[in-house]
């Protein structure tokens, strides 16, 4: 057999044409999103410090650089989500096509996890949740009565908005379910991200294998604590 005369494109164009390049884009955008999700959870812990702490944090954040910081951040995160989803769809479709006929008697998997097998599904749940969450706490379209409240200093009363919203069990359950999906997504993806970037070899491998589940558990515990504390009456108005 003679060697085929196909030569790969070089540089960025070639990278972007390849499955590995698509994965690298997912990993890099995923890295940004994970960073956001982690800091978002940590900052929200200020719920426990009371209305003053949370409301002034939110107020200052919104007015940083005359509002430019939040809008810049939003645009950047939105771009990351768009790229992440575009690559996820491209690769998920490709992977489905790569095995047009399934095993008639089924496949017996040995080492993969549920998290790894349901990445696209948990991804879709996260996307739907992000839309709902933005309409809820950022836009005030869902539950506008909870949203349009000011505190004694005339700032948006973020603390009261969150607490009154989570007193409604249906709202809390939506947040809990979405965060469980997020935890599954993170537990596979963060470790997978290091593998995709070629960073997960050698002696760091056993540690990096645990980083995904650890970050997932950290974010899950923090995020679940908010609706649960409100429902349990630990945080109340």
């Amino acid at each position, binding site marked *: 057999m003679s060697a*085929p005369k196909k030569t*790969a494109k070089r540089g960025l164009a*070639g*990278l972007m*044409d390849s499955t590995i390049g698509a994965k*690298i884009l997912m990993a890099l955008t995923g890295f940004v999103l994970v960073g956001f999700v982690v800091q978002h959870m940590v900052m929200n812990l200020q719920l426990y410090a009371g209305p003053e702490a949370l409301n002034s944090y939110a107020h200052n954040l919104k007015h940083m650089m005359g509002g430019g910081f939040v809008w810049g951040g939003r645009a950047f995160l939105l771009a990351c989500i768009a790229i992440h989803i575009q690559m996820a769809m491209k690769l998920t479709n490709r992977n489905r096509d790569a095995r047009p006929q399934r095993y008639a008697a089924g496949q017996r998997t040995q080492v993969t996890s549920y998290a790894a*097998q349901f990445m696209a599904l948990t991804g879709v749940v996260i996307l739907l949740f992000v839309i709902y969450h933005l309409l809820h706490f950022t836009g005030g379209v869902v539950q506008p009565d909870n949203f349009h409240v000011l505190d004694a200093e005339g700032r948006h009363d973020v603390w009261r908005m969150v607490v009154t919203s989570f007193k409604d069990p249906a709202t809390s359950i939506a947040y809990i379910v979405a965060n469980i999906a997020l935890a599954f997504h993170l537990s596979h993806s963060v470790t*997978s991200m290091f593998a995709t970037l*070629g960073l997960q070899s050698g002696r760091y491998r056993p540690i990096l294998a645990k980083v995904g589940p650890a970050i997932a558990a950290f974010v899950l515990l923090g995020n679940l604590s908010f609706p649960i504390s409100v429902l349990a009456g630990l945080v109340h108005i």
Partner: protein
Amino acid sequence: MSDEKMKITLHVWRQKGPSAPGELKTYKVDNVNPHMSFLEMLDVLNEELLQKNEDPIAFDHDCREGICGMCSMVVNGRPHGPRKATTTCQLHMRSFKSGDEIYIEPWRAKAFPIIKDLMVDRSAFDRIIASGGYVAVHTGGAPDANALPIGKKDADEAFDYAACIGCGACVAACPNASAMLFVGAKVAHLGKLPQGEVERRSRVLNMVHTMDTEGFGACTNHGECSASCPKEIPLEAIMTLNRDYARASFSGDE
């Protein structure tokens, strides 16, 4: 070990040709000697089928000693069957019990079209190798051993990656039918050695390009490939491949 004969029920994928529809057909094989290999058990069944004027089951095999990578079949949902680090030809019937039901299917991947029954066309792997899985050197006579010094660690690792027999079990096991472990094994094997260093960048770019155009899936780091690999190629092969690929994409030289 008991020499008692076993009775086995097989459900085998039968498919007359590449585009013919296929189905699982049931066969009973009595008198299975536990010391037979899995392929010998299929030979016995094929003898019986021939005597009954039925079409024997087509399956690939060559060396029958675990080195050629031909004996591709998925046995009870696992490529090469239930034993770790064992090709189908090296699997013995003593790994099963009398009365067992065994399902046998071909590798399933768009890039490995079925030829007949359990035989698939794995020439996509050949095309990946032809696009870069070699070193272009004047071989001349056999060089003296150790004429080219190579560190022990690199030599050992290159040897471990070189153990890949190109069987395709990694593709068959992968939920995405990805060939990353195979390609990674070749890239890591040659990249560890000074002889392979020269073409390291163009090799990885061209092999990945061919891998993609052959229609294999993309890696999502399930790890099923390595768990099913009869030569236990480690998942690090894929991480090396990812790293080499990213690096080569941004490098100007060949």
